[in-house]
């Protein structure tokens, strides 16, 4: 939770949500995202991670509870004003569209009549894609494609990024590269990031982790406090073991489930 000195950009209070009259998918969930926070959203498939991000971005409307952005109800914002404050990157990144990298990144300026100080070239430079500006999206590697979309959200200039599994289907190298990039951008631009992910070991790299199961929060706090053997077992329904290196760093092993 954000502290009094770090007021919440986005606050979800007692949110519930169900799809098309079904049983509640998100249940009385509350979360506050403070300025510059870097939050990992962890949970099994179908636990409600993506739904929670969609509720936070205004893409879905909660059946009960409040979503506040900078202290004002999210639904009271004009679409374009909201887009200047929150950027949501969905999990499915369509790659068949033959936009060039420059065209796609440039879409980040759509909410603006007067472009902000940052330019498309700046955004491409920040994600290291200046030399690919005129390439078509479909000609890029998976990692480059993700970086392109990150550049688009950067150009959008929002202070809060809601990223739905940006590391999914990427090789370890690209996962590390993208994590470094997102963290660097957070540090340089003091933006807040909430990121859904699957890899428990990568979740250890976050400053704050939210563990979710069946639309309810199992725990929220520092990874060391939340990513315990008991809570992970409860969230994912597998046995895990936390192994600590001599220098104190931990990683989570689940190999004993295979035998």
């Amino acid at each position, binding site marked *: 939770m954000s502290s009094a000195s770090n007021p919440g950009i986005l606050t979800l209070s007692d949110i519930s949500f169900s799809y098309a009259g079904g049983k509640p998918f998100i249940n009385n969930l509350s979360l506050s995202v403070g300025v510059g926070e870097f939050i990992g959203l962890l949970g099994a498939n179908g636990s409600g991670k993506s739904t929670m991000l969609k509720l936070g971005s205004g893409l879905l409307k909660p059946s009960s509870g409040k979503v506040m952005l900078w202290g004002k109800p999210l639904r009271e914002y004009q*679409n374009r004003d909201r887009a200047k404050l929150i950027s949501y990157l*969905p999990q499915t990144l369509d790659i068949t*569209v*033959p936009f060039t990298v420059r*065209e796609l990144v440039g879409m980040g300026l759509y*909410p603006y009549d007067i472009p902000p100080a940052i330019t498309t070239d700046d955004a491409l430079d920040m994600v290291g894609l200046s030399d690919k500006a005129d390439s078509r999206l479909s000609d890029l590697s998976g990692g480059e494609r993700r970086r392109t979309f990150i550049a688009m959200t950067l150009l959008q200039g929002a202070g809060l990024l809601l990223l739905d599994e940006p590391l999914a289907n990427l090789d370890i190298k690209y996962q590390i590269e993208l994590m470094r990039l997102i963290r660097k951008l957070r540090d340089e631009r003091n933006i807040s990031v909430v990121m859904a992910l699957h890899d428990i070991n990568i979740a250890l790299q976050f400053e704050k982790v939210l563990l979710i199961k069946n639309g309810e929060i199992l725990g929220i706090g520092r990874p060391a406090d939340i990513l315990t053997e008991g809570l992970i077992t409860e969230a994912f329904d597998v046995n895990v073991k936390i192994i600590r290196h001599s220098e104190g760093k931990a990683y989570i092993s689940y190999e004993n489930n295979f035998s």
Partner: protein
Amino acid sequence: MKLRIFIIVLICAFTFFASLLLGPSVINPFTMDETAREILFEIRAPRILVACLMGMALGASGAVLQGILRNPLADPYILGISSGASLLAAAGIIGGITLFGSFTIPVLAFTGALLTGGIVGAMGWKRGGLWPERLLLAGVGLSFLFSAMLMLIMSIASDEGLRRAMLWIFGDLSMSEWSRIPYGLAFVAAGIVISGSRAKALNALILGDEFAHSLGFSPHRERVLLFISVGLMTSASVSLGGMIGFIGLLIPHIMRFFLGSDSKILIPASALGGGTLLCIADLISRSLLPPMELPAGIVTAIIGAPYFLYLLRRKNVLSI
């Protein structure tokens, strides 16, 4: 890019003027007699303007529809608008209806098109939004229904009525006259202006509703506006000269190949390309076997299909 746009504008302008001067008789603009002047201003000019308007409407509609339906196979006729127009127009031709004088068939076609567009829109609407899959399925379903009804009417029609209805359905520009241009221009211009002004939203919708929302658009509202623009353009086009196949499918793909997928460029470029292709097809259709005229719709398909198949072999071309 600017050079490519310039070349396309140049080709379009050249085709327009060439279509005016060429045909079964070649007109020299510097030595025109009274007959040549009459052919030029009373026959060719309105006909070529109608061809331009229809082609522009179909090209731009195709670019918009492929985007909002996120389907590279979409064309303006996929929503059943043309089937509804054809049904009423054929009924008018075969039934000998003359309610609005020479405007009877265009008015009937336009009414049929708008009614069909309205029904497709209503069926595509659910939970406060316009859904691409529902639109597509409703359009295909209605298209089948209206085509069957059209066949039924045609199967009981007289030979002369049948021939005239067939000519209209395959795209008949021979009835073009100046009086049709103002309303055609108004609806086509309105459609191009609406869709052109929503080009950024269309780009975002091509990426998906979630992106469109994140970039500050209301996906359903934008789809409604774009759907209205397509409805206006397609209805105007069908009522001006019947069904001209292939332009709405082919032209956006050709333009995408040369100019990329950015709708801000693609919509006006597809309009220009559509107008150009139909002018060329019309020139061929009236010049190939004079005094007989081939339906322009058949010529566009004969020119377009091989090029479309050629494009099919090129990487990244047949996508939205």
